[in-house]
């Protein structure tokens, strides 16, 4: 998807290891979001950012942390990966604080074994 890239696209990791997912945007949008997608749950918000060094928790933030040291990068870290964190992770960006519509990245498929 133009203007927003996620890396890696796929990752397999072992239980207990730390994992960092990266979201990079070239749109200079202030607002960035991390969601996870699971069957039967749709997309659920993990964390979001409303500016450099400004972040807040979403509905499923336990076990996750985020950092935003630059406008263009939003990192999601699983401090100690668990099997329940096996999921597809999507980053999204938005120009507006009123969530008038997001642009999504292509996702990262994470498997914790």
């Amino acid at each position: 998807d133009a203007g927003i890239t996620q890396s890696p696209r796929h990752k397999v990791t072992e239980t207990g290891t730390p994992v960092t997912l990266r979201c990079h945007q070239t749109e200079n949008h202030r607002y960035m979001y991390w969601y996870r997608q699971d069957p039967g749950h749709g997309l659920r918000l993990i964390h979001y950012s409303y500016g450099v060094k400004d972040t807040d928790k979403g509905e499923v933030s336990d076990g996750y942390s985020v950092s935003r040291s630059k406008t263009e990068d939003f990192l999601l870290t699983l401090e100690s990966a668990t099997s329940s964190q096996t999921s597809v992770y999507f980053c999204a960006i938005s120009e507006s604080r009123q969530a008038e519509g997001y642009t999504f990245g292509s996702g990262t498929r994470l498997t914790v074994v």
Partner: protein
Amino acid sequence: AQSVAQPEDQVNVAEGNPLTVKCTYSVSGNPYLFWYVQYPNRGLQFLLKYITGDNLVKGSYGFEAEFNKSQTSFHLKKPSALVSDSALYFCAVSRPNSGYSTLTFGKGTMLLVSP
């Protein structure tokens, strides 16, 4: 709190027939409503949104949706389905406020269009 319900896990329709994917929402105040589509192994793509104004919203690929405040619904429709419309569809809601609002998504509805 805001929430979205998509009561059908899957909708099956024959090509050329009209399709409807249902969505109801719960939010205090006036909502912003959205439909997104996801093709296999892809991110979500924006289809259409209702912010204010005309209750009938037209979007990409011939899709439209009608905002019904009394029924708290925002059903997605298309007059004539195509096989290429087969995908996973998500309804989402946000509530504009004085702070920062975020999108809440439904669980998704798989649309299967048969030839």
